[in-house]
């Protein structure tokens, strides 16, 4: 036992029980018993002081003599990031947005006139990424924390964080999500470097392998598929599913053979995903088989004079249908036969229908009466097919005119389905359609539809939304009845809409008695909208490297 341990032991037990060793330096080996005797009765009073003296000496000596330790192995440095650094004002803005991130949204309807910074962060990130800036290193932890808290931020935040963000995430278990999702940051070998590709494919992390597959496929679809085939049977079921799902980008007829094989996969989800992908290839054999089955169920009936559609739903789900991905068991509350019919029509290529209905165009087909209450079922299946096959004419026809009352539209009365159909239409047409819908039906049902429009909103759409808000105010509503749309407008209105808003924000809270306080709340809401638009304009200017604070509207 060395002198210091001796002191600690004595201190723990107490000098009454364990008189201390003499001061360090006079201590000789084997002197234990003798020294204790020497510290006997006469010295007992001073024993604690002697111990503390010795301990003080030791403590200061140890601290003064501290030496460096050996260095551990350095981590592999973060890969270089060739993107441009942010301009100063944009850098400061990012600091503000990340600092405002943690501010909780106030409960209740009233939010004052200040913009919600957390809502602007996604947009800021998107624009920064478009400009090709790299994230400032010191902002990476806050950025990763923000992405951890909000999954909707992740793709943009991780892209912005870049290779260094991914490197950092590898050191902190709290940021593991970035390694799973971080396709942006992986450094991939050249797609033509067969050996390196092979190596990464066999030893890489899952995220790296997914990214590698995408890269190789982009350069040479056949090589990508060959890579996937090479290990397909040894992959875990959930990995097979993810790999298969990643084929969605750049799907082509060349993938058909592989997907056909996957129809016989062990995993049920793998099979159904393969079937879904095949049905999105209108020329595939599966699509052809489904077209045959669907056509045998849906036909044109002329016997009653005017043409009408007659539906005869399948009576069984045979082995062929099962193999082609039809799910045999309906969810609770749905009939088996209509469930099977829906899946057949959804997976059949839309191109097979004009021939089936005497050369009619989609609009004409949709306007045909349908016998025996099958209309809803049939149209809903066509909606799903249009979305899956990204078919613009069918989507347009299924949506019908925007001003038509929602319940009587040709395709579907479900807003979620409509939002999906809208997302197939070109940007401009989409905005016009939603503008027409808002003008005809107001804002109360428009939220989902507004969400699929391109940002910033095109002029007619922005104008329609602002008009509708103004009308809602005149009707005596409170602004928080529209807080969802308001929030969207803050993020999506074009800064040019500021001019139209200016007069609304300034409008005095005159008919105060009409709806208690509503006028003031509306003016506040419009002022907040306006200040958010100004802030977004500054954000864009800063990121573009222009001086900020430019006039808006």
């Amino acid at each position, binding site marked *: 036992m060395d002198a210091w341990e001796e002191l*600690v032991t004595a*201190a*723990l037990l*107490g*000098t*009454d*029980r364990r008189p201390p060793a003499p001061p360090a330096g006079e201590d000789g080996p084997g002197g234990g018993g003798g020294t204790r005797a020497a510290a006997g009765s006469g010295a007992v009073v001073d024993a*604690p*002081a002697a*111990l*503390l*003296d010795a*301990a*003080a000496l*030791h403590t*200061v000596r140890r*601290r*003064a003599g*501290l*030496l*460096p*330790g050996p*260095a*551990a192995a*350095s*981590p*592999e*440095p*973060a890969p270089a990031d060739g993107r441009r650094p942010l301009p100063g*004002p944009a*850098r*400061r803005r990012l*600091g*503000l947005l990340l*600092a*405002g991130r*943690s*501010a909780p949204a106030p409960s209740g309807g009233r939010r*004052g*006139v*200040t*913009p919600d*910074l957390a809502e602007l962060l996604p947009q800021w990130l998107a624009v920064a990424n478009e400009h090709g800036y790299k994230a400032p*290193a*010191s902002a990476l*932890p806050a950025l990763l924390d923000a992405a951890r808290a909000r999954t909707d931020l992740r793709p943009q935040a991780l892209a912005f964080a870049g290779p*260094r963000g991914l*490197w*950092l995430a590898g*050191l*902190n278990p709290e940021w593991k999500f970035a390694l799973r999702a971080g396709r942006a940051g992986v450094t991939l070998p050249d797609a033509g470097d067969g050996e390196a590709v092979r190596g990464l494919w066999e030893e890489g992390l899952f995220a790296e392998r997914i990214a590698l597959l995408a890269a190789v496929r982009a350069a040479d679809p056949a090589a990508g598929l060959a890579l996937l085939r090479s290990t397909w049977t040894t992959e875990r079921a959930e990995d097979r599913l993810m790999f298969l799902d990643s084929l969605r980008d750049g799907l082509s007829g060349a993938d058909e053979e592989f997907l056909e094989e996957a129809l016989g996969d062990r995993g049920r989800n793998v099979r159904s995903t393969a079937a879904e992908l095949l049905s999105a290839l209108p020329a595939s054999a599966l699509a052809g088989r489904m077209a045959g089955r669907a056509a045998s169920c849906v036909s044109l009936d002329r016997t009653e004079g005017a043409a009408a559609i007659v539906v005869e739903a399948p009576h069984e789900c045979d082995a062929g249908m099962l193999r082609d991905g039809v799910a045999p068991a309906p969810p609770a509350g749905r009939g088996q036969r209509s469930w099977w019919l829906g899946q057949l029509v959804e997976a059949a290529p839309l191109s097979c229908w004009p021939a089936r209905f005497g050369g009619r165009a989609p609009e004409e087909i949709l306007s045909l009466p349908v016998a025996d209450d099958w209309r809803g079922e049939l149209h809903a299946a066509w909606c799903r097919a249009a979305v899956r096959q990204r078919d613009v004419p069918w989507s347009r026809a299924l949506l019908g005119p925007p001003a038509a009352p929602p319940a009587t539209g040709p395709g579907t009365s479900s807003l979620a389905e409509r939002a999906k159909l809208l997302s197939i239409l070109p940007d401009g047409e989409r905005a016009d359609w939603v503008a027409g819908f808002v003008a005809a039906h107001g804002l109360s049902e428009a939220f989902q539809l507004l969400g699929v429009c391109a940002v910033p909103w095109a002029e007619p759409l922005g104008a329609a939304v602002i008009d509708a808000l103004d009308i809602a105010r005149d009707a005596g509503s409170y602004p928080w009845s529209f807080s969802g749309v308001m929030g969207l407008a803050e993020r999506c209105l074009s800064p040019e809409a500021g001019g139209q808003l200016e007069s609304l924000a300034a409008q005095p809270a005159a008919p105060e008695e009409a709806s208690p306080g509503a006028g003031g709340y509306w003016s506040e809401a419009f*002022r907040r909208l*306006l*200040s*958010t638009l100004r*802030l977004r304009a*500054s954000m864009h200017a*800063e990121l573009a490297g222009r001086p*900020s*604070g430019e006039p808006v509207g």
Partner: protein
Amino acid sequence: MRWTADQVLALAPDDASRRAGSKLGTAGPWSGTGSGDGAVWGLCRGSGSTPYRTVVDLTGPGYRCSCPSRKFPCKHALGLLLLWSGGEPAAGSSEVPGWAGQWLEQRRGRAAASNARGTAGGPDAPADPEAARRRAGRRAARITAGTEELERRLADVLRGGLAAAERSGYGPWEETAARMVDAQAPGLAQRVRELGSIPGSGPGWPVRLLEECALTHLLDRAWLSVDRLPDPLAATVRTRIGLPAPADGTPVRDHWLVLAQYDSSEGRLTTRRIWLHGRTSGRTALLLSFGAAGRAPELALPVGVVIDAAVTPRPGAGAPRADLDTRFSAPAPLDAPPPGGSVGEALSVYGSALRDDPWLESWPVTLAEVVPIPTDHGWQLADAVGGESLPLSGPALARPGLWRLAALSGGRPVTVFGECGHRGFTPLAAWSADAPGETVPLH
């Protein structure tokens, strides 16, 4: 130069103000804003009919707002500074309005007057030196009685054993700490409170408790013979006991780089530490300021700027404590970090400083060309060449600044300023080679 949002937010007295200030940092509620002559001003629309009038004197910084908030700076001042940090309003964008100009003039007039007084050394001198001497004598006697009592308490603890002291809990320590407050020895009271918390501090506590008991004992003994100690050491002992030491050194005018600013709270008292590095003198100075009862300390400097100012060192050979005197201009941007050394040099600097002040926990140093490295037992800072390292201290490992440091480094050498001591290194600010003018705060 404009401060960054981080620099502004570091001035906030608490999290709630930080959040409230962030929300006001946009043009929305503001009107009549302007900046120039080292100040920013504006009108902020609140819930009432008249907007609040907010002015910030950037050379202080000092704040003035007509709002009723007792926070300092208030959310309006923070919001205004954030707005300004975001590029609005443009410098020299308008005339200083009367209400702002008046306050600025008064404030700057007062500052000039107090500086003049400070250099003359006049009114601060006690009116009756004889009475002051008698008061000092009475206090010294009380402290002496206090140290003797503390010695008896330590002796009792050591006689019965630390293991027994652990079982008796915090109560007896709390009682002794209260006695030290009565004895007008706040330094000893603080020490005793820390002794009481050591048994609950995790594995290895007996060693730590013995070390700290021993150093407290050393301080008691030093006080009891303070008259026979050499002057600098005697001054250190008085400061450690908790006797106020007036700043009576020669003021040092220099371009001081603001390295770090951080607060810690002990009960109701908030202590703010600001580390400065003198460009020409090479000195490092610590400014301490205090805020009682939930108020933030008044002195606040934005980290990462250079101020042209005079600083008066306080006596006490060990601590590099000083007072900020005259500031000659508004803060300027920094171009390069302070010069630094290796981890071995940092430890030997700390070791040498212990000669003058054996109670030193740590010493301010700048490490150049070091790489933060994660290990199984926490993180270390290692020389980029030379293979030597220092562990990061426990508190440093628990702070978000650790990850900013790692991010800034990216596995490559950086310059790091911090406190180097027997518990390891606590990083407070860092600079990368890519952006040597950007100070990244790590607290």
